[in-house]
């Protein structure tokens, strides 16, 4: 059924085989189901993993009461939250308030349409896959802004404003970091990018792009240390302060869904997606996704939150120039070796990354930032 599942050695880069069933109606149905199952399953597992790993890192134990090892904790929470009363603030903009969770949630699932679980095992093999990911994933910020605005709460508004500012700024480094990968792979289709990583993952060839993508990705999906929009110690719960019950659950789901999506995109683009020895391809993909998410949990445990102006300056003064320079270097490499970059450029790229980070560390100033108030 799936020609690619045999994991045959493929030439580089290669379009889908002619018998790929991408146009058959049952393909759409099956993959919609697979994506939904994968999405919900990994969200539940992500919530569980986040709570357990976070707890262990914080010298606690974490949820261990519901089910074996507390595995069913997320489900128990979901049941609880669904039974809650739905409260709509009196002065809220009702329609927008009700629409916001759905608008936040829907784009998150949509991104997974182009992420391959195995060779050729994806819903739609778009040849503009990366562009699609970038375009759709930033849509959910509209929902967040609607939520913040319509709740008629000052904390929500501050959180939503921060969110929009962050997403707009961090699109730029993400695009540039992914562009350098696209240059090397020679295709925007995620499946082709994975195939291009057959001999070594893109992480080795583009270490700096991975770093930038990881940092910017954390900011894009508002994970710590960039979780300004729901900074719990400052603005209570940010944009979803006024949400309860089912609507809150959707936001929660969307938040972790974004983490799933971002982890799977990073795993696909930089860690070689479903490529890997011995195990099934889909298992490799899932393992890599969880590994990326583990890195996110790890940073969340360790780091304090940055300030909003520092968030901006990090994007524009640190990530953006580095991504641009990295893109230029990659372009030169690709132009010099149009038939594939030799493996020893791995070391060159790591060196370039290290030198750039060291250089920018000198230029980048931290601290201070008082604004004179008249």
């Amino acid at each position, binding site marked *: 059924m799936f020609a690619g599942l045999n994991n045959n050695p493929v030439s580089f880069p290669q379009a889908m085989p002619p018998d790929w069933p991408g146009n058959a109606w049952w393909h759409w149905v099956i993959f919609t189901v697979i994506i939904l199952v994968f999405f919900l399953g990994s969200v539940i597992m992500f919530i569980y993993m986040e709570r357990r790993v976070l707890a262990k890192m914080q*010298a606690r134990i974490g949820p261990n009461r519901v089910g074996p090892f507390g595995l069913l904790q997320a489900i128990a929470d979901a049941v609880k939250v669904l039974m809650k009363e739905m409260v709509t603030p009196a002065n809220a903009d009702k329609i927008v308030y009700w629409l916001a969770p759905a608008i936040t949630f829907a784009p998150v699932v949509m991104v997974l349409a182009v992420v391959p679980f195995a060779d050729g095992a994806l819903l739609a093999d778009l040849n503009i896959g990366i562009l699609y990911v970038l375009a759709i994933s930033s849509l959910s910020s509209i929902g967040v802004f609607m939520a913040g605005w319509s709740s008629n709460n000052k904390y929500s508004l501050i959180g939503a404003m921060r969110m929009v500012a962050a997403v707009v700024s961090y699109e730029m480094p993400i695009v540039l970091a992914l562009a350098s990968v696209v240059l090397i792979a020679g295709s925007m289709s995620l499946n082709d990018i994975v195939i291009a990583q057959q001999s070594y993952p893109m992480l080795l060839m583009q270490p700096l792009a991975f770093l930038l993508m990881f940092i910017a990705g954390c900011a894009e999906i508002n994970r710590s240390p960039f979780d300004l929009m729901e900074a719990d110690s400052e603005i209570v719960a940010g944009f979803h302060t006024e949400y309860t019950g089912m609507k809150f659950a959707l936001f929660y789901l969307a938040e972790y869904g974004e983490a799933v999506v971002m982890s799977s995109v990073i795993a696909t683009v930089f860690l070689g997606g479903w490529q890997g020895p011995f195990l099934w391809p889909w298992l490799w993909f899932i393992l890599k996704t969880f590994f990326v998410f583990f890195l996110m949990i790890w940073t969340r445990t360790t780091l304090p939150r940055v300030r909003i102006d520092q968030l901006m300056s990090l994007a524009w003064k640190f990530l953006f120039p580095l991504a641009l320079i990295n893109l230029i270097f990659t372009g030169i490499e690709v132009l010099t070796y149009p038939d594939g970059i030799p493996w020893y450029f791995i070391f060159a790229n790591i060196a370039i990354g290290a030198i750039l*980070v060291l250089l920018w*560390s000198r230029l980048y100033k931290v601290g201070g930032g008082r604004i004179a108030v008249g």
Partner: protein
Amino acid sequence: MVNFLGKGILKGMVVTFTNLIRPSPTTQYPEQRLTVSRRIRGTELVWSKTKCTGCATCARTCPQGVIHVVTHKGENNNYAVDTFEVDSGYCIHCGLCVEACPYNALFMGYTFERSKYRRNSLVMSKDDMAIEHQPASGYFHPEIAQTLPEQELLVYRGKKK
């Protein structure tokens, strides 16, 4: 060593990772219990009927004024205690009454789990506090403290003492 942006962050991340591997000091409360201090000032007072003379020193010492003592003249020209009540809802467990009791008739409780459904059932009568029914703590009573098990300390966790 070269200084670069993120060095401190990496150092911190090593610390959190070591904690991921290290066993946690948490105790799972209802199943696992730590032995509390021998001098714990537990839930409410424990009262010894035989030792109490009804002098009401405890009632005068209590900063909250929650001890209520009523006596009448007994056979041997002493006080016979009619009522000895403590409103444990107002008790702050400061232990000053135990400290003040000249006849060693008052003790702090050794347990620490107590809750009631009604507020007036928090008022403890003589029988509720009788030393025959309640374990007493070693607060200001070294002779009781010797009989109690030693407190489990976090500093000795995972170590042979």
